[in-house]
């Protein structure tokens, strides 16, 4: 499932194919509409409380720019600070190397199980699968990730990964699977969210209490102090970060921040953009190790895995500023209808459409830059002002260029565009086409819309309905109603 560049799931159905299936799933669309609408409203309410929200966004963007333009400097400082505080720093060029490092660290403890805090980066490198191959069981402890793991499923949203599941499905998964992983679901488990959360609490608590090794991601790390932080809601993060003897944190190199003080911007931007709360219930920050409190062995794995290649692109590098809040998913009309699975990547939605092709190379994800209407809602929502439409357009050009370089035959789009250019440049041709359009369209329309067309237009129309053109064009209407009367104002 991991491709040559080690970001999981690519090579799954391309976006248009996966999207068509998702669009036919009415349950999924209902769940998504409710979820994205709810989070959107909450986010708008709490961001409106801060009258300097735009200044905070600008500062967030500038801080990320400051970090990325001197990334080497900040990483070296972070390494020094973490080491000085009693932690160990490891560097990984790609997913395989990161997985090898983590596996070796786990094995050195003599343990065969680890508890995990929800993290995008360990999904990106398929760490759980890599550990399983070496005989280590990795238990996801975030409720949604637990649902996904027990259901042998994939996350579909950055913040609420199991949003595609309803309560009855979750109850069935718990009843069927919990016993295979540990404490079984209680007898007579209902589908009330409170009961389901309680079942998860009981199931996971025995794992927390015996866990000796934990694996987490990081929301940020301050280069000046070496402080690493994780934000969460449930307390499973605190369990993993506090109770085990060994803590292994995997962090993308772009997550470093120049200073601890910079958190004053991100701890305001992140919770409000993400869950629509003024602050998430729990934020844990630790600096190396503390005697008598928490893990006594701390390892920080700094991961590249396509990030330096992304950094090289002066337009595309802004995607590395992403703080994984998922605000762009919740405002995206494409995501709201297709859900996260259609993107075929751990990073779905608008940010996934720009981040994934850059991390793996556009040639491995060439449909993703087109999985957008370019409406710009994601840019407006982004707390660090990533100009996602700009990067999408930039990557589209790269995809076209890559196809052209491969010497493929002209695409249907190219042929259509060429024909359109010829028609639009000639008034005579245009009115001839317009005269023919209505009768022709009526032949293929149903209830006023044109659906699936055969032939070269098939790929365009398969996922789009078009309105039937009006009987009369504007130009014809103008001639009929105002013809010869221009002078009689």
């Amino acid at each position, binding site marked *: 499932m991991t491709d040559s560049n080690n970001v999981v799931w690519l090579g799954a159905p391309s976006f248009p194919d996966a999207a068509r299936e998702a669009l036919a799933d009415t349950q999924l669309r209902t*769940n998504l509409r409710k979820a994205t609408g709810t*989070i959107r409203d909450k986010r708008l309410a709490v961001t409106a*409380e*801060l009258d*300097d929200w735009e*200044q*905070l966004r*600008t*500062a967030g963007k*500038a*801080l990320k*720019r400051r970090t990325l*333009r*001197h*990334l*080497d*400097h900040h990483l070296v400082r972070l390494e020094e600070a973490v080491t000085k*505080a009693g932690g160990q720093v490891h*560097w*990984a060029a790609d997913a395989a*190397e990161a997985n090898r490092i983590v596996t070796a660290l786990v094995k050195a403890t003599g343990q065969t199980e680890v508890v995990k805090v929800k993290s995008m980066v360990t999904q990106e490198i398929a760490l759980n699968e890599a550990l399983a191959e070496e005989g280590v069981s990795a238990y996801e402890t*975030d*409720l949604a990730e637990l649902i996904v793991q027990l259901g042998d499923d994939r996350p579909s949203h950055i913040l*609420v990964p199991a*949003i595609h599941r309803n*309560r009855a499905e*979750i109850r069935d998964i718990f009843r069927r699977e919990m016993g295979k992983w540990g404490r079984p679901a209680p007898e007579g488990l209902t589908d009330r*969210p409170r009961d389901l959360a309680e079942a*998860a609490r009981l199931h996971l608590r025995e794992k*927390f*209490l015996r866990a000796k090794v934990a694996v987490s991601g990081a929301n940020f790390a301050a280069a000046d102090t070496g*402080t690493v932080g994780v934000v969460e*809601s*449930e*307390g*499973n993060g*605190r*369990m993993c970060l*506090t*109770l085990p003897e060994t803590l292994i944190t995997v962090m993308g190199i772009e997550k470093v921040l*120049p200073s*601890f003080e910079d958190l*004053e*911007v991100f*701890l*305001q931007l992140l919770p409000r953009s993400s869950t629509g709360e*003024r*602050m998430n*219930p*729990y*934020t*844990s*920050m*630790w600096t190396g190790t*503390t005697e008598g*409190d*928490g893990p006594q062995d701390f390892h920080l794995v700094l991961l*590249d895995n396509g990030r*330096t290649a992304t*950094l090289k692109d002066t337009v595309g590098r802004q995607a590395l500023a992403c703080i994984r809040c998922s605000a762009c998913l919740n405002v995206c009309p494409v995501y709201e209808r297709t859900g996260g699975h259609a993107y075929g990547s751990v990073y779905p939605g608008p940010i996934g459409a720009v981040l994934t092709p850059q991390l793996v190379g556009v040639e491995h994800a060439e449909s993703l830059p087109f999985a957008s209407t370019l409406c710009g809602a994601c840019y407006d929502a982004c707390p660090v002002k990533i100009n996602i439409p700009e990067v999408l357009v930039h990557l589209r050009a790269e995809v076209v260029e890559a196809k052209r370089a491969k010497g493929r035959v002209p695409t249907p789009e190219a042929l259509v565009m060429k024909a359109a250019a010829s028609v639009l440049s000639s008034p005579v041709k245009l009115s001839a086409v317009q005269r023919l359009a209505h009768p022709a369209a009526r032949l293929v329309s149903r209830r006023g819309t044109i659906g699936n067309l055969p032939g070269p237009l098939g790929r365009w129309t398969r996922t789009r309905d078009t309105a039937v053109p009006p009987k009369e064009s504007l130009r014809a209407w103008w001639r009929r109603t105002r013809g010869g009367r221009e002078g009689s104002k």
Partner: protein
Amino acid sequence: MTTRDTVLGRIRAALADVPASEGPDDVPVPRDYRRSHAEPDAVAQFAARVADYRATVTRTTDADARVTVAARLAARGLRTLVVPDGFPAGLLPEGGGWTVLRDEPPLSVAELDAAEGVLTTAALGIAVTGTIVLDAGPGQGRRALTLLPDYHLCVVREDQIAGDVPEALGRVDARAPLTWISGPSATSDIELDRVEGVHGPRTLDVIVVGGE
């Protein structure tokens, strides 16, 4: 060549467009955002914002603090209560129906899991976000103490309440293990229905002490 050299080398090559004369601090960061969004009465705002998370908030005076603590604990009907070192003796009620557990020598995770509640102070509070910040200082204990028992009663003094996040960050020691708590443990992972209490304490009680 180590992976460290490889990755740092790739970063430097990728940043060829950054002029050599530009230093890390030369990239400007406009800091014209507000230092605080707190209301004039930050203490009242703190109490209201903590309560917004469905935590219980009680305001009391120095003179009544001990009685208030006793009343909150009695209302829970606790049998075992963890009290970290350094918790002010004057605030700890005597008697009551509970057994006080001290973390010296350190309690095992099983003992902590079996304990029904924990009573702590805090390093500070944040008015705008309704957050209490623990830094493992006196009266707060190590992090596991406020995590495993199902009930957390936290005493915050009015003069510990910071207006907003920037001020709070300026007042803590980054090198201490920090836990920021905003309401009880919560999840919205099932159909976005909010449920309090998944893994952390299901109930958070805050007592704000000060004034007349």
